[in-house]
């Protein structure tokens, strides 16, 4: 269930209809730019701190 939910949520947010197929060669030399890494780290910190209330 978790896998399905995870995949569905990811495709919806990226507005993709199917899972992209990328080869290892495509990403092997990919560098993650600083601004992307910085945004990721700040979201990760925020995610650990403030829960979003879902109501009961």
């Amino acid at each position, binding site marked *: 269930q*978790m896998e399905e939910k995870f995949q569905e*949520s990811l495709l919806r947010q*990226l507005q993709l209809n199917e899972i*992209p197929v*990328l080869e290892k060669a495509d990403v092997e030399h*990919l560098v993650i730019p600083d601004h*992307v890494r910085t945004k990721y780290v700040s979201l990760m910190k925020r995610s*650990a701190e403030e*829960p979003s209330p879902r*109501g009961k």
Partner: protein
Amino acid sequence: RHSQTIAEIMGRFFSDASNQLLVFSMKDRLPPNRELVQAVLRLFQKPSSKGVIRKQHKMFPFHSYASVTIYWVQVREDGTNRTYVIDSRRVSTQETGWITFDVSQAVNYWQQEGKVNQPLVLEVSIHRENIGPMSSNAHKFIHFSSQNPVDGELHAPQLQLHTLDMEEYGAHGNCDPDIPLSRGTRCCRRETYINLQEFKWTENWILDPPGFKAYDCVGSCQQLKKEHLNFRWPFATQRKCHVTSTAPLPLIVAVKEGDKIVTKVVNLYNMKVMQCSCSSEGMPVMKKLKP
């Protein structure tokens, strides 16, 4: 206003509703270890004189009702007030005695503000049930005992708070990983780790994180028994262990843009369970205060 064809008309807002403010001190009434399940406002409706009832009945034989609406009054930092409708019901001039209103949402708003030393301020508005020249003016003859000492203590408005002891009826935070789950396990948050690298389809697509702690809510809740409740509460149904707050999960993914491959950050919502609670099925979800 600002219309070329219609001249602006100035006027005064006129309402023949009668309003009274009620102020309840909340000091020590809702300690952190108690959960509010319902808040009830009880107002004593004074009897209308027989003459009034007779005259009303003659003029409006089928309609001697008025509407009573309860508002929560939010006193803002800048000193202005803002009101929120909490409950409303019809009242007859021919009745007298205690009537109740559900003001759970008002107490919940008060809790959300977190100003524990501030009182709860409610406004009782008695107004016409219908609008128009033929509508009854029964609202003029409906009176409730107020908090004014002149009205006496016996029939003063009452705020009843029905709460549950969280120690007994609440969840127990995070599960103890050293204690195996059993029938007796109390509702808690169990750590479950999702290894994204086990999902074949994430290969070369999700670059970070390799996995994450998702958690889930397990265990059972202490049930309410009818004899525990000294009032009629429609939600004394099955209490279950629910997810009550979640957090998003950020990811770094590789995506194709044209013939290039770039990296992007995506924030997946409701992916991590942050809190589990025991609550009754069908309990109304309290509204959130908007800033």
